Each structure stands twice: as C-alpha cells, then as structure tokens.
C-alpha cells in the first residue's frame, strides 16, 4: 500500500513545520559521525558487524552514517522485518567507506541487511524498533526483486521472441514475393506487415547485434534516404517503395501498361536484392537467436520505457522516416511492443508497482489517440507532418506522460541482492 498514506502525506509542511520536523527527529541523527565524517547516526554495516551502533528510536526522519568495517564491498538494505519490504539499497559500499542515507520510517520493526557481494555471505543485523506516532510522510518501501525472479519472465520473453522471429521471416518472405511480382501496393502492404512485426520485437534489438542494424539500419540525418548508401533492410525498402508512384488501376491503355511495367522493373532492380539480403539476415537471426543472447534482467525493465523513448526521439522528430511517413503506424506498433515486454513482468509488477493500472491506462490512451489517425481496415495513416500543431502537442504530451510512468518499472524491478532467508 505504497500510496495509502497519500492523504496524510499531502499535508503541507511549511517552513515552520520543516523546522519542527528537523527539531524532533533529525537533530541527533544529523550530527556528523565523528569517525567517518559523514552525517547521521553511525552504523557499522560490515558483514557480521551488521547493524552495530543503532538500536532503534523514534519513528520519523532518520539519517544514518553507514560505514563498512569489513574487507568486502557491501550492499546494504534496511528491511521491514514483517513485510520484507526494503526502503534503501546502498550498493557498492567500498571497504572502509562511509555513506550517509536519509529516509523517514513509520513505527515498526526493522533490521539492516549487509551483503558481501558474490563471494560474501548475507548477514542480517539484529532487529530494532521505531516507536511513536509519526504522521509525516514516510519513505515508501518495495518488495525487492532478485535475479531469480527474472528467470521465468526472461524465458517467457525469449520464447515469445523466437516465435515472433519466425513470423517476421514469413512476412519478409511474403514481401520478397510481392516485390518479385512487381506489385507496388501489395509490396507496400507486405512491407508494413514486416515493419510492424519487427517493431514488435522492440525489447530484443540489442540481442541481434550487427544483424539488427542490417535489418533496421539508422536513417542518416540530412541524407536523402533513397540515395543513402548506408541504408539497408527495412528502411531501404521503405525508401524505394515510397519513391515509386502507384499507377492508378483501371485504364487498360497502352500508356498505363507501360507505366506498370516500369514500376515492376524498378522494384525488381532496386528492391528485390535488398529484400533477399533482408530475408537472409532475418533467417540468420531466427536461427541463432535463442542460442547466444537473451535479454538481461535489467534490459526487460529498461526496455519497458526505452521503446517509447525511441518513439519520442526518432519517430516524432521524423528521424526514422525513410519516405513512408508512417510515424503513427510505427508508434502504434511500439505501444504493442511495450505491452509485450511488460506482459511477462506482470506477476512481478503486481506486487511491486501499485500504479501498474495507471501505466496501462496511459498506454491505452496513447494507443487510442494514435488510432484516431488510422483509417480503420486500411493501410492509411495520417502522415505526422499533416497533424496540426495542437495534435502534435497532444501526442507529445500523452506519449511523454506514458514514458514517465513506464520509467518506474525499471526502478521497481531493478534486481537487488536477496537478504538471508
């Protein structure tokens, strides 16, 4: 119930109250630790000495000077004994180092956890209690996620990615066929399917290495995509497909036939070789993916917001547009890609992120707004450049708020070392 205390915490603390709060809780604690020169009540967090120096006190603001007397780098947490929630995680506290931490805790029973890295043991200090009726704001605690918690989600996501890659291969294969036949509109449609399928893999980009860049090469700023020699894969095909002009269906005139033949020749010459290479790259990725690389635990959390950070940075600025002007189509796919990353994390988040429903609601709101620029049942999306300034601002506003909420996922799921059982 991280937010249950909200009504109380919304209370104003003016300057006078600040002074009062400082006077009660902190003054003793805020005095610098003589030994370490760091502000706060001195607490030894060196392995077996874990928690020495602090035996409890009043609920409310606390400042501790944590010092590491052990010969190992320490990770230090303050844990609520009953709920096992932690409030502070100090990582990489060096040998002989001291660090000041500040937090505010309600009455309860707590302990320090001192973990000595990969080779060291995890120690729990003695329990201590805070007493008194403190009504001010307190530091919210979290149920920490450990590396072990990520085994299932990472496996699930990897399996999902492998399935998606095989679908992507099918889509690129269909695209190649359409290009070989020289049907421009069919090829554009197939390209959109492949592009969407690739965007859905959002979280897995890093796992594809150089092949990822070949499939989706960055568009060089300031260079016409059609003539950019560095452009490969999907963006290169986009440049070619949207450079060609569709010949209106209908007239069976000789001129129309000639025009269609020209388009067919152009696609066979300019696009088919690119598509063949793309198919080979996708096939290679699909064949080798589950072999070497999986998304790391941290990646999954970070990707929860980074896919849409990319949308803000590369889509809404037009930087990733190689000619199709399908910005909103891309963003729509990126919303789904984000949902797909979060899906295997839901069990972990349900216990840890009281705002998951809010995050979901903003993803829905973003998808709904983006969808207002799509003519249902067609490939037609309003080009971003045709949005009014007011519409562009609204999109930016909704997308920005969404990534604000998404960014919390990486923080609450940042794995910390588990304390002793």
């Amino acid at each position, binding site marked *: 119930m*991280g*937010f249950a205390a*909200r009504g*109380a*915490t*919304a*209370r*104003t*603390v*003016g*300057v*006078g*109250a*600040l*002074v009062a*709060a*400082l006077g009660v*809780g*902190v003054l003793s604690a*805020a*005095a*610098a630790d003589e030994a370490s020169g760091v*502000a706060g009540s001195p607490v030894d967090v060196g392995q077996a000495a874990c928690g020495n120096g602090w035996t409890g006190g009043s609920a*409310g*603001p*606390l*400042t501790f000077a944590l010092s590491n007397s052990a010969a190992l780098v320490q990770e230090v947490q303050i844990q609520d004994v009953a709920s096992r929630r932690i*409030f*502070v995680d100090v990582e990489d506290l060096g040998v002989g180092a001291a660090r000041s931490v*500040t*937090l*505010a805790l309600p009455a309860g029973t707590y302990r320090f956890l001192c973990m000595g890295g990969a080779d060291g043991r995890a120690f729990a200090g003695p329990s201590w209690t805070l007493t008194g009726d403190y009504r*001010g*704001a*307190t*530091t*919210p*605690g*979290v149920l*920490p996620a450990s590396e072990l918690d990520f085994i299932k989600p990472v496996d699930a996501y990897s399996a999902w990615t492998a399935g998606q890659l095989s679908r992507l291969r099918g889509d690129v294969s269909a695209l190649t066929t359409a290009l070989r036949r020289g049907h421009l509109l069919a090829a554009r449609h197939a390209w959109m399917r492949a592009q969407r399928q690739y965007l859905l893999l959002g979280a897995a980009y890093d796992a594809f290495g150089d092949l990822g860049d070949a499939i989706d090469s960055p568009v060089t700023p300031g260079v016409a995509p059609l003539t950019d020699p560095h452009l490969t894969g999907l963006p290169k095909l986009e440049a070619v497909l949207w450079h060609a002009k569709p010949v209106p269906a209908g007239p069976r005139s000789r001129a129309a036939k000639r025009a269609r033949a020209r388009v067919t020749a152009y696609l066979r010459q300019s696009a088919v070789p690119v598509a063949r290479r793309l198919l080979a790259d996708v096939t290679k990725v699909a064949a080798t993916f589950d072999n070497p690389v999986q998304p790391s635990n941290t990646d999954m959390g970070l990707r929860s917001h980074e896919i849409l950070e990319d949308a803000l940075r590369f889509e809404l600025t037009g930087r990733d547009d190689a000619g199709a002007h399908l910005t909103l189509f891309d963003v729509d796919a990126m919303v789904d890609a984000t949902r797909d990353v979060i899906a295997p994390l839901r069990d972990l988040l349900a216990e840890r992120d009281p*705002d998951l*429903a*809010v995050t979901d*609601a*903003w993803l829905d*709101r973003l998808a709904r707004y983006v969808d207002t620029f799509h003519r249902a049942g067609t490939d037609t999306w309003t080009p971003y450049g045709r949005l009014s300034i007011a519409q562009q*601002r*609204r999109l*930016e*506003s*909704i997308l*920005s*708020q*969404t990534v*604000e909420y998404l*960014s*919390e996922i990486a*923080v*609450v799921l*940042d794995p910390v070392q588990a304390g002793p059982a």
Partner: protein
Amino acid sequence: MRPRSFDVSRRGLFGSAVAAAALGGGAVAAFAGEAHAAAGGDATSAGPADTVYPFEGAHQQGIVTPSQAAAAYLALDVEAADGAELVAMFKALTTAARWLTAGGVAPDVGMTGTSLDNGVLGGPSVPADGLTITVSVGASLFDHRYGLAAKRPHRLVMMPAFADDLLDRSICDGDLLIQVCADHQDTVNRALRVLLRETRGSLAARWRQDGFVSPSRPDGAPRNLLGFKDGTANSAVAGHEEELVWTHAGGSEPAWVEGGSYHVVRKIRMLVEFWDRVSVREQNTLIGRDKASGAPLTGTEESDAPDFNTEYKGEAIALGAHIRLAADSGRSATTGQRMLRRGYNYDAGMDVNGNLDMGLLFTTFNQDLERQFATVQRRLEGESLADYILPVGGGYFFALPGVRGSDDWLGRGMFA
C-alpha cells in the same frame, strides 16, 4: 481507493517531511534562527545567502515580490481530458510549487521510482534561492472544454494586437502561464523541469522565454537593454495594491477572483542595432529621461517626479516622449491607470538574418486590464519609440489568488 486513471500527479504525492529529514546540519542552523523579514517585506531569510518566500497567502508570490534576478515564462495549453484531470493538474502544480519554493530536497520516493529532483541544485542542503512560482490562466481555458465559461474573470480576453504590434501568434496566449523567478538561473531551471515533469500528460508547452534583471548600474532601477533605467515609476504603486493590483470579488467579477491580478506579458523585441546607431541626445528625447542618471528631463535625480506641465517648463519632456505618453498629462489625474510593472530583459540569440533577438518581457499586474494596461498602451500608439521596438508576443493572463492554507490549491476557486 478512488480510480487513479486521471491522476497525473502521483510523483508529487509524498509530503515534504522527508525533505526536511534530508536537510543536513547546515540547513538546520539556517532554518533554526528566528524568521525575520527581508527587504521584500514578506520573505524569510534562511541564512546569509538564501531567501524563502512563504508559499501560502492571500496572493501568489512573484507579483509584488521584489524582482529576482532570473525568470522563465512558460505558456502552456491544457491537454487534460476532462475537469477531473484539470483539477488533478492544478493540485500537482500546487504540490510541486510548495516543496520547490520551500527549499530543501525533493520528497523521497525511495526505491519506487526515479527521483523527483533533477539534482541541478545538488543536495542534501538545497536553498529556496528566492524561488517564486506564479500560475496564471488565459482566456482560452474558459472555452467550452471544461465548462468554466461562467467562471472567466470579467476582463480576461485574448490579448488584441495593438497598433504597433507585429504579433507572432505562436508565441502568444496559452491556457496557462507559469512564471518562475529566482535569485539564480539554475534554480529556475530546476523548478521548470520539475513542474513540466509533474504535468506531462495534462499540459503541453506553447512558448517559453527566459529573462533576467540586470543589477543596478550604478544605482537605482536596473537598466533595460536600451540602456535606460526601467521601473522607476513603480514606487507610485506601493501602498496602493488594493486599488491597483489585486482584483476583488463583486460587480462584474466572479467571487473566486478575490486576491488575484490581471497578468500582462508582452515580448517586446528591441531593435538594438538600430538603437545603437541613434545619438544619446535623441534617445533621451524619445524616452523623456536622461540615460545616464535616469532623471526625468525636467529633474536632476532618478527619483524626481517628471513635470509634464509645458506651460512652465516648455517641452523639456517632448510631447511624444515615452514617459509623457505613458503618464498622460499628469499623475494625479491618472492614478487609477498606474500599474505594477515587473519586467525582465530577454536575450534569445540571433534571428535568421543575424540580428540580435533581445528586448523586454514587459510584465504588468493590474486590477483592471482595461482601465490600466490597455488604456495606457493605446496612448502609446504611434509613439516615436515604436520605430525601435517591436511587440511580437505575450498574452493576457489572470494570476490566480493565493493558496490560502495547507488544504488549498491553486485555482480551487474556479471549481467551487
């Protein structure tokens, strides 16, 4: 628990007590001393170098507050989906403004999210640095979207183009204006970023301009970028705020406007290359004051009242001089037109032609837009100085009444 789908303020939900906790020993000493009034009258000095303006009061800060050195003006449009989200936005702004202006570190979110603070001011001992955050609303907020039409302050309209204006509407108007002022630019920067972050889904930035107040050179009112002392006449407003600055309920005004003020911002570009090619004698004539001393051309000291009586003094202050037109034919007759000015210089780099884009963020607070600012502005139409200045942006806004207690929030009266 109530539905949270409209709640965009969860980052600002934690009170400020933890901020207090994090203040180090140094801050304790700074706050422990008995609060005493600073030069501004209502500030408490939290130490030799820090100034704290109380957030709560009948009026917002940043109006009669002595001008701090640095400012940012940020005009935004509201993107809230409905009235409930609009209310949540005002509450989120209030919460953030409260802890930002109090000084100290941001509320602690522990390990549940990224820090509310951007760390531009470091920590744990963070000064208030004279920070004020003044929130005003534009006429467009009272359109059909949120059902607030009946609550519109009576005089609040879209700023019209005056005769000498060349307005770029993309840097005019806005549903909301946030004026952030502090003793240093870094404090303004930190506050601006926090405020934007707290309201991403409900506000979209429309235009922004930063400003600065120069130090006194060598004394008296600070100089604008024409090189003239500016704001000398403000002393005539002091003590008359109830009649000249604050709006009151009653008459044609809705009840909630009590304690607010009409907030006019005009981005006036100064064509400084041209101005610098004009002799100081001619500049003095255009303004009606002596450039070096700031004295009216009928006096010897900056503080001397200008004498506009041409019968006795001839035309020492030319008939078309800026201060004569602004003051009309004599102060006593136009008392009700006086307005509190709180301008900032701005410097926005160069335009595409390589000319300097700089000038004045003319800012004034009025009890009655029409009686005060608009009347004086119309008198200035066609003034000779208009060849050297160009109003290009800004807008009419209404500075909300102050936050009157710990449960109050900015704009609450509009929703009552």
